[in-house]
């Protein structure tokens, strides 16, 4: 193994900077003569703006300007675009309402942007924002899916009757109907997948900085994908040509999807900076994050699984309503459709699947991708349903899963819902997890818990997911309005150190380490001599950024392709220097050797020769040693795994204690096992959060977000989760050279159903078969009590 190469748990390069306070986040950046923006937000879920009186705010000392949606419209500012179009089953395009960065006539959720105050200090801006007097005519509002579906429900948009944005389906209904007609058993489940509020550690922030001399704009922003922001904001919102707009996403403190999207504030500060001729900074307060960062999940579904007498899955049908919020966020429509319906086969060979999804508008914060994005919704539904089927048929839940797994020898496997899985071994992950969990001794542990008056349960979840977004042509057919390749540049410096320029963006993933490991492995360059640069459209090639666990499978592959070009060119140079044939040059451990001889040249000397080409084949080879590659994936990648959770329930209070959690995952080849383990720990923690703690609550009458702070919205803390027991079982991805699949979201995708299945197992003696997430103590207590009554 190459030292610090692929497969080694190298310590993270970036941690010294972060741990010692040397990180440079957007709010750490200050521009000369900078102003501070405070956003006036709607206190109402739905209202007509009758008038906005700005004079009191404008007259406050230190206030430079108060700007509204009308000012933006007058400057020709466009709406925030949606990056994915969905076509309904009847062939019509989804309802796509406009989304001005500052509302003009109507506000549609509590937190909707209404005006912006620009002032000399943050405090003055905030004080003055309260002096902006908005005269609202309150309109009826609706926040939840069930209420929004009623015939007399308040309407969010005129162009979306019944609040329906799209009515989409996937799969073939006829064979599914046939399967159900032939079924011996039909397992049924009504299930709610709750709305989540992302809460990255670093709140969103943005600085717009217009350079009048050059007529150029710079936007510093908390983004997972600065080029995407440049494209969307430049082309659709502010009409700035790309060569005049630079977007910098410096160190970013967590995203989980919520920092993919193009947000109003980015456009507001960039536009305002030109308008007032000074840089403008905005940074969200935590309360603002709660009401303005895109939320996640929020589905209501009914699912049915047809089984044969022996327990074979014959057909699956699913009907889902998905809450999109008040406006379409950048990728909102893709999440409950192509990232959800296509995943409903799971790891099972169910031959017929049909899924219909209605995307609905409500007067709530827009909903978009949140760690897992669609796949957690699919796996939660499916794995809950499999447990329902096990109870219904009396077949052991492990056995039922095994019986229906796609077998390891049937890859590539075409599912009935569009995806073709390339590799996996679901049996192996299950076996490994069972062993790690000590499943054979579970009965003893349950009895021991019972002696202490506790209810112990064990829950399973076998998941697959699709990540490494995505083959661009396929994504385009499915409605994506962008390519989904990645770009990377390997810049070998004259003395042999390497600068990596990547379109991927690290906001916690550790790219500066793992990408350097790729370089060390391929070129033998010392790990400390590799620097990874990301997040600045002024420096890096056009990249699509980081989301959907794509950084290694797509971004890493772009680098791998560029590294291949470097290796080939290095061999050519070495062949010249060593006066040998190119085909005879071997390149290993940083040295290029003529095969079978002791004649060699170091990679550093090759690099020097490329930049000081005194002895160099200039007639056939360009000097320099820098290569760029764009990589477009051939398929999604399909990580999979098995999670086993054990819980102990206190029947007197209903408190659920997660006492053990095992994850056996297949992420393909692992570059850095330590970082992968960390990703699983974080993902599982978020999944446990959804299962037990996190509650996004809108008051149905007032439309207010009741869980609007961390005092009420419960994020899991370290003490709320157990020591995790994680391992991997590798099958290689077959369609990328690295064999990598991705690991960023799997923890979130697999864990929630494992926890809830464990809770229901613990409650099985009370015949409790369903519980709403999060399984709060009161819900568990009520379930026990109503069963006992």
């Amino acid at each position, binding site marked *: 193994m190459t030292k610090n190469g692929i497969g080694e748990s190298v310590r993270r390069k970036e941690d010294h900077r972060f741990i010692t306070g040397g990180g440079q986040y957007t709010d750490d950046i200050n521009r000369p003569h900078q102003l501070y923006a405070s956003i006036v937000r709607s206190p109402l879920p739905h209202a007509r703006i009758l008038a906005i009186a700005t004079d009191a705010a404008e007259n406050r000392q230190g206030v430079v300007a108060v700007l509204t949606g009308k000012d933006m419209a007058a400057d020709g500012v466009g709406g925030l675009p949606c990056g994915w179009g969905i076509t309904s089953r009847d062939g019509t395009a989804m309802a796509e309402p406009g989304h001005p960065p500052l509302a003009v006539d109507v506000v549609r959720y509590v937190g909707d942007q209404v005006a912006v105050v620009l002032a000399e200090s943050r405090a003055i801006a905030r*004080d003055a924002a309260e002096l902006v007097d908005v005269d609202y005519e309150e309109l009826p509002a609706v926040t939840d899916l069930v209420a929004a579906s009623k015939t007399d429900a308040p309407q969010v948009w005129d162009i979306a009757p019944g609040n329906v944005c799209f009515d989409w389906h996937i799969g073939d209904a006829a064979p599914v109907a046939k399967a159900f007609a032939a079924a011996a058993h039909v397992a049924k489940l009504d299930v709610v997948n709750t709305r989540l509020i992302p809460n990255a550690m670093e709140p969103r922030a943005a600085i717009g900085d217009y350079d009048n001399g050059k007529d150029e704009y710079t936007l510093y922003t908390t983004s997972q994908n600065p080029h995407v922001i440049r494209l969307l904001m430049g082309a659709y919102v502010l009409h700035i040509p790309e060569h005049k707009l630079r977007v910098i996403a410096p160190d970013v403190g967590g995203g989980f999807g919520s920092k993919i999207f193009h947000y109003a504030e980015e456009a507001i500060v960039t536009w305002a900076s030109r308008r007032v001729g000074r840089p403008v900074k905005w940074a969200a307060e935590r309360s603002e994050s709660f009401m303005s960062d895109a939320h996640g999940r929020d589905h209501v579904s009914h699912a049915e699984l047809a089984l044969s007498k022996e327990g074979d899955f014959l057909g699956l049908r699913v009907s889902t309503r998905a809450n999109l919020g008040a406006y379409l966020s950048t990728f909102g429509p893709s999440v409950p459709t192509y990232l959800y319906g296509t995943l409903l086969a799971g790891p099972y060979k169910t031959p017929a699947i049909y899924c219909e999804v209605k995307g609905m508008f409500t007067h709530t914060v827009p909903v978009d991708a949140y760690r897992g994005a669609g796949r957690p919704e699919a796996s939660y539904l499916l794995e809950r349903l499999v447990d329902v089927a096990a109870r219904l048929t009396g077949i052991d839940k492990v056995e039922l899963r095994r019986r229906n797994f796609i077998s390891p020898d049937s890859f590539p496997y075409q599912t009935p819902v569009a995806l073709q899985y390339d590799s996996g071994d679901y049996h192996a992950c299950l076996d490994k997890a069972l062993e790690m969990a000590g499943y054979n001794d579970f009965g003893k542990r349950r009895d021991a818990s019972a002696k202490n008056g506790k209810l112990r349960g064990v829950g399973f979840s076998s998941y697959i997911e699709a990540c490494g977004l995505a083959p661009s042509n396929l994504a385009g057919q499915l409605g994506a309005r962008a390519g989904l390749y990645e770009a990377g540049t390997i810049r070998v410096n004259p003395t042999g150190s390497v600068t990596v320029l990547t379109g991927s963006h690290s906001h916690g993933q550790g790219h500066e380490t793992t990408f350097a490991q790729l370089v060390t492995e391929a070129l033998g360059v010392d790990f400390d001599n590799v620097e990874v640069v990301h997040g600045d459209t002024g420096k890096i090639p056009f990249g699509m950024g980081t989301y959907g666990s794509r950084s290694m499978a797509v971004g890493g592959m772009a680098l791998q392709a560029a590294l291949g070009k470097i290796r080939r060119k290095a061999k050519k140079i070495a062949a010249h220097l060593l006066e040998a044939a190119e085909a005879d040059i071997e390149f290993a451990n940083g040295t290029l050797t003529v095969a079978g001889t002791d004649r060699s040249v170091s990679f550093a000397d090759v690099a020097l020769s490329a930049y000081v080409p005194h002895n160099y084949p200039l007639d056939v080879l360009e000097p320099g040693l820098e290569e760029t590659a764009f990589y477009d994936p051939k398929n999604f990648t399909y990580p999979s795994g098995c999670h086993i959770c054990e819980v102990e329930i206190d029947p*007197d209070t209903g408190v659920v204690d997660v006492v053990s959690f095992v994850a056996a995952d297949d992420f393909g080849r692992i570059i850095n096992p330590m970082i992968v383990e960390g990703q699983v720990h974080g993902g599982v923690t978020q999944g446990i959060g959804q299962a037990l703690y996190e509650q996004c609550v809108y008051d149905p009458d007032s439309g207010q977000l*009741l869980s609007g702070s961390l005092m009420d919205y419960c994020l899991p803390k370290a003490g709320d989760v157990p020591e995790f027991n994680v391992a991997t079982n590798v099958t290689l991805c077959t369609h990328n050279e690295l064999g990598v699949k991705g690991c960023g979201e799997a923890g979130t995708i697999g864990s929630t159903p494992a926890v809830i299945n464990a809770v229901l197992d613990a409650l099985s003696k009370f015949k409790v078969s369903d519980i709403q997430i999060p399984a709060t103590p*009161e819900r568990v207590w009520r379930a026990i009590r109503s069963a006992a009554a």
Partner: protein
Amino acid sequence: MYEFSYQHPSSLDEVRRLLQENDEAKILAGGMTLLPTMKLRLARPSHLIDLAGIESLQHIDDERSSVVIGAMVRHAAVAESKVVRSRIPGLADLAANIGDAQVRNRGTLGGSVSNSDPAADYPAALLALAARITTDRREIAADDYFLGLFETALEPGEIVQSVHFPVPKRTAYAKFRNPASRYAIVGVMVAETSDGVRVAVTGAGACAFRVKEFEEALAKKFSATSLDGMSIAADDLNSDMHASAEYRAHLVRVMAQRAVSGAGG
């Protein structure tokens, strides 16, 4: 936050003067409620009068039949105090489980008692232990002190100086905490004192209150089983997104039993 003026007096006389001179002034103890409230712009004091510099509020005294704790003693100091730990271990345990480490290192006994948050932990201890609150004007029995939601017997400008905790025969606190805020959804302090058994509840109602029926049952026999089958009415209890009144009523009994067990009953 709105703009305010920060004052750091070194004597109570100075505190009183500042209060008299400024109608909209607020006393700052640990600030664990006041500062977040100000950050959310729900409070707008003209002056903050910080008591941190007043040494006479910083003591923990071991007296013959009681422990006296100054108003500015932080929760962490109570939790770590050898005096409290040896004389009233249940009180040290209570303090050790308030909020989180950051809150315990800033929050104070006097601040908690003066604010009387319905979900704060200390009010249960004051009631259960029949504490006496000493202010700059008088002494108030805990039974007369907690009047309602954020409402106490304190008069405007009256400053809590210390709390006098009689040492009970035994006591323990059991808390069912809000998983997000770490406040008490229900907290019950049970104490066997020289004047009988006292059961005090926080988190469940508008302010801390005693449960006489539980006290009578435990007076007959100080055992968790004495409360089996008992319940309190849910009618006036708090109900929010974390717990309904009915669930809180149930938890009062469960936590009371755990507190009794914790106290060795």
